[in-house]
């Protein structure tokens, strides 16, 4: 029964697109594998700089962005703020992740939807993704 239920859930995920932004390519690989294995479409970005413009430019609006707080080049929080400041991207839910658990407190200021401390369990990741992915 449990299997049937998860299969149904998986069916819902087929069209959900998740963008993962992290400056570590290994994390990107692992995230891509994990999320795809669990039924999501996954895109990955190594840089956060100008993310909101890039998305608008390529007319790409994922259902969830998983964003690392510490990105080389730009601060993930700043990237989130820019996304939330733009009318075309502000609706995209953002799940922030960081190796600094203390940062969980500061995500409210930037309107991020959730926070996950690295390293995390797969089931925690899936739970958070499921909670935050856009349901439109």
């Amino acid at each position, binding site marked *: 029964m449990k299997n049937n239920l998860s299969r149904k859930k998986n069916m819902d995920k087929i069209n959900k697109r998740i963008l993962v932004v992290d400056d570590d390519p290994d994390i990107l690989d692992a995230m891509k594998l994990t999320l795809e294995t669990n039924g999501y479409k996954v895109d990955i970005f190594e840089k956060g700089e100008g993310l909101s413009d890039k998305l608008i430019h390529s007319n790409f609006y994922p259902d969830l962005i998983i964003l690392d707080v510490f990105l080389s080049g730009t601060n993930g929080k700043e990237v989130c703020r820019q996304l939330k400041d733009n009318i075309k991207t502000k609706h995209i839910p953002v799940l922030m992740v960081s*190796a600094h658990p203390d940062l969980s407190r500061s995500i409210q200021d930037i309107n991020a939807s959730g926070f996950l401390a690295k390293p995390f369990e797969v089931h925690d990741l899936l739970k958070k993704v499921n909670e935050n992915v856009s349901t439109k």
Partner: protein
Amino acid sequence: MDTSKSRFKPNLTKKKSHNNSLKMHEVLLAKIIDRLATSIDQDITLQEISKLLVPDLADYSRIAIVDDYKKIKEINVSHKDPSKVQLASDIFDGYKGRPESTHGIEKILNSGKAEMIEIVDKKVLQSVKSNVSLYNTIKKIGLKSYMGVPLIARGRVIGAITLSSIRADRFYTMSDLKFAQEIANRIALTLDNANLYRQAQNEIIVRRETEKKLVDAQKRLLFLSEASKLLSSSLDYKTTINNIATLAIPYIADWYIVDMLNEKGQMELLSVAHADKKMVRFAKEYRKTHPVDLSTNSGTARVIKTGKSEFIPIVTDEMIVDSVKNKKELKLIRSLGFTSIIMVPLLVQGTVFGAMTLVSAGSKRIFSETDLSMIEELGTRIALAIQNVKLYTEAQKAIDVRDEFISVASHELKTPLTSLKLFSQVLKQQVEKRGVIDFSKYFEKMDNQVSKLAVLVEDLLNITKLEHGKMEFYMEEFNIENVLKDAIETLMPMARFHKIVLKGKSTKNIYGDKYRIYQVVTNLLTNALKYSPSAKNIDVRVGTSKAGIRLSVRDYGIGIDKKHLAKIFDQFYRVTGSKEKTYPGLGMGLYIANEIIKRHGGKMSVKSIKGKGSEFSFTLPFKKNEK
């Protein structure tokens, strides 16, 4: 008053003469009393009295006073005929300093008794014949009669008066002697009173000086202690040194200047203070054109080079002339009216940080050695403060570098751990799907190990934060039961053989950092699982007491030996022993948990019996207003 005739015929006119003499005594005494009453200066008064005595009572009189140092001071040698004064003086010199003297000042001073030679006849002359010059002088002067009386005050001989007659018609009688003694008594009384008065005055002066010194000393101490307070109050010594100026000016000095040696070894003006702001601006401008030149060997430069103070109690014009280069400067420096200068090094343990100059100008204040010692002390304290700040800053920098390193390192360690966890869990998922259950078990073990590694990394970071008070707490109101349930749920996968039983209830909320309390509970549960490998149950109890909410985690495992219990919360403490099974760990978990509870105003405790299990519990206060 003519008594000469009566003296020629003493027998016939004795009574009349006596009456005349009494009258003269009366008048003379009145005059003397008057003089004494208006006496201001002792010497002048005695001189005037001498003049009254000659010629009415004597042709020659001498008053000697023994001073405080037992020295004999001769106030007056008086004679009606100045030409004979020298001769008369010689007579006394003939007696002077001769202890064996039969008569005279020294004799009276020694004996304290009056003496009289009514008639200086051949017999008397004969007695001094051995002293030829004396003999000759007495003859030459024609000494006819002599008497001397001591000045006695409160039983002490304080002087003597001698009176001599060379008149053929004046021979001293007992009545004269009594009168002379009366005069002497009056003089002695006045002198003694004057002495007492002077002593009292001196005492007052001494007391006032002592009081002033005390007040000064207190002022100095206060200044030093205020300055020290300032120095210890801040790490910004430059501002502090500027603030000390407000203590020093104008109470200690008129100018306060501090020069510091910079990193290039040049002198930099750090602080200038003067009561007049215009003067401060002037000094700053002047220093721009006249910086302290360390290649010279004067003033501040020398203080810096030698590490020794310079003290100029009184600035002379010569010094100013010597120190300037031209007339314009001379005029300028003169106009500043420097009175006194103290320059001290800011020196501690052989390191000179700079120099402090205090100048008295315009005011009449002249610096003393005590001022110098105080300023030197202040210099040392300032130098100590600077050294402390430098050491502190260096240490702080090192700590910051270390903290930054640990923070970066833990971040860097967590990144590969994150990928590792994801990969191992996805692999587990995949092999399960394909039915390879054995492999699935190994991937799970691998994942657990990665989790342990992650906890260790997190603990290392937390310890660093705790040690430097950098752990942040986000206080909020929450129900601990929810936190407990979360923690139990998270640990369930690890507790395959255990049953974690939650007992009790908590209706009230606590006030704290939810995440940190979760960390503490997780730590206690992890320990309970780890140290009770063959037990079935772990009891978690929650309840309320007066002090707050009490929570305990009880296991039925190996327990802790008594000798370890007291140290169980110490940083890096691990239970090890030859007979004991060792468990992996760095001894950080309980230390961190205890610290977190402490920072919440709570208390953690442990009860344990070896072989029977342990119970860790803590109390957290309710939200403040619910107390």
